[in-house]
């Protein structure tokens, strides 16, 4: 009996010792937390929203077919599929048929002239689509662009099409400000920046040729760090882009930018692009406090010198720092009040580089336009996506689309929510 007691005491000790010795084992890993809490979207008077569905995951850009079906490009496969089609057969605003196809993750999607275009992070595909039924012929898939850089950072191959058979694809620079050592404090900028040959700009390809590459495409615009939101303005027939401005001005140059200045700068900029536009990255940024395009500190900037930035393409709109413009849509519908016609909706995904200041963004803004030029101040259109804690947002607006009737659609890439925005007021 004594021996049994001794044995069981010893065993208990060994087991408990073994248990504590593995106190930092990872066998009980908890899945990373996502933001709890819901959020209620607020809109101007007369507008209402329907949450179509909320579980697509990494829902990036969206496009609506002539028959009203909504197509969503996912950046993380859901049930093995990277494109989802939402069909509402009873007109209650919520899809009753949700079908997936395509096995690649990515951001870009657009519908033009009977084709659905979609991108992975290296290639662009297109599918024949019946505009009356929204039916996509999966077997008709064609690879129209291939071989684009995907070096992880700024990987989105967002796209849009013009009215002359061309497709425009963002190739984001895999870099913050083209430093010798990316994101290392004190590392100087590379001059000239060798990334610009293959990234940091918009590339133009033909919408109907197979297997185009860098060699057969054209670098349409350069000096753009990363453009996730872009749209072809059909009123004036020009490309408009939203640039994600550089990070870390405060963290790397606290002597020139204090904590608040680092949060508010650089501006997120909208550019009207012509062939050959050079918007200045990495050499230049827009300083919201000085209201000027200045040299980046990596290139000798002292927060007052413009230098070579005087020769670069100027932006037509500037927004507060780090808001992350992920979607741009020129509204052409007639359902919304007249002031919205031909104006721009911009989806601001929301900041992270404002830390330790509070974050900002997580809203959709509207800017009125006339003849391709902003004609009034920007205003917040859809708000509340962050929910209770703006530092840990519930939803992150990413894509924008409109349907043939003039309703607006917004996607969120945190949970995969799609909202349909209607106007019911007078």
């Amino acid at each position: 009996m004594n021996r049994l007691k001794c044995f069981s005491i010893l065993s208990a000790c060994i087991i408990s010792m073994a248990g504590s010795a593995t106190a930092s084992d990872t066998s009980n890993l908890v899945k990373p937390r996502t933001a709890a809490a819901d959020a209620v979207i607020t809109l101007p008077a007369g507008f209402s929203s329907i949450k179509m569905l909320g579980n697509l995951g990494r829902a990036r850009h969206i496009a609506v077919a002539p028959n009203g079906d909504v197509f969503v490009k996912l950046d993380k496969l859901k049930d093995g599929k990277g494109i989802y089609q939402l069909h509402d057969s009873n007109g209650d605003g919520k899809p009753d048929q949700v079908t997936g196809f395509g096995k690649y993750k990515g951001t870009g999607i657009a519908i033009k002239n009977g084709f659905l275009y979609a991108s992975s992070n290296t290639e662009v595909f297109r599918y024949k689509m019946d505009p009356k039924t929204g039916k996509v012929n999966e077997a008709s898939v064609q690879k129209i662009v291939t071989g684009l850089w995907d070096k992880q950072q700024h990987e989105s191959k967002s796209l849009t099409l013009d009215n002359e058979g061309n497709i425009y694809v963002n190739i984001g620079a895999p870099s913050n400000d083209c430093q010798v050592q990316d994101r290392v404090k004190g590392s100087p900028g590379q001059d000239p920046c060798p990334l610009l040959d293959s990234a940091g700009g918009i590339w133009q390809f033909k919408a109907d040729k197979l297997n185009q590459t860098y060699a057969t495409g054209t670098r349409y615009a350069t000096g753009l760090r990363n453009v996730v939101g872009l749209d072809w303005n059909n009123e004036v027939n020009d490309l408009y882009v939203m640039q994600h401005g550089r990070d870390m001005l405060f963290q790397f140059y606290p002597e020139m930018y204090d904590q608040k200045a680092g949060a508010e700068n650089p501006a997120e900029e909208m550019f009207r692009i012509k062939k050959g536009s050079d918007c200045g990255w990495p050499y230049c940024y827009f300083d919201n406090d000085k209201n000027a395009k200045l040299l980046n500190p990596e290139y000798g900037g002292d927060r007052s010198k413009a230098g070579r930035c005087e020769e670069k393409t100027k932006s037509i709109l500037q927004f507060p720092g780090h808001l992350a413009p992920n979607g741009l849509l020129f509204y052409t519908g007639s359902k919304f009040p007249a002031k919205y016609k031909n104006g721009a909706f911009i989806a601001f995904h929301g900041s992270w580089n404002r830390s330790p200041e509070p974050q900002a963004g997580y809203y959709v803004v509207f800017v009125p336009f006339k003849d391709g030029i902003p004609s009034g101040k920007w205003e917040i259109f859809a708000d509340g996506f962050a929910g209770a804690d703006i530092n840990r947002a519930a939803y992150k607006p990413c894509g924008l689309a409109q349907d043939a009737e003039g309703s607006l659609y917004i996607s969120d890439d945190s949970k995969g929510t799609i909202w349909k925005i209607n106007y019911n007021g007078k």
Partner: protein
Amino acid sequence: MKNILIIAAFFFFVTSSFSAIQPPGVKASIERGKKVYTATCLACHQADGLGVERMNPPLEKTKWVLGNKKALAKIVINGLKGGEIEIDGDNFHNPMPPQGAQLTDLQIADVLTYVRNNFGNKASAVIEADVKAARINATAPATVVKKQPVKTPVKKAPIKQ
């Protein structure tokens, strides 16, 4: 029986030193480490340690934070390329810059001890010896590369991948 009780007491004493009750030096290390986190890590990993979806990984109960201490120190010293961390099907696309030249062994030990005892984590402290061992065969340069590269003319033709 008395001998067994003495041995049992010894085992319990040894056991308690493996538990999460930290000796006093660790408390000071955590306080110093919080300062390093705020100055160097917070910008990307955020004040709540949950990072940024798709871009900067969370630090809560991940296998990298709670696992091998030398490997964790190597991550801070050498940095990471974008996309190296995948959690639950999500790749985190931003690179993590190397901090080997920017932080001392003590600062790295302190910040890792802070992270391993914050953000819902509870794990043993990282000490300078762990960091020293991790610096052997470090891949990142020991100092920030200050030299400008030689200026080369910009190629006109696009680069083939």
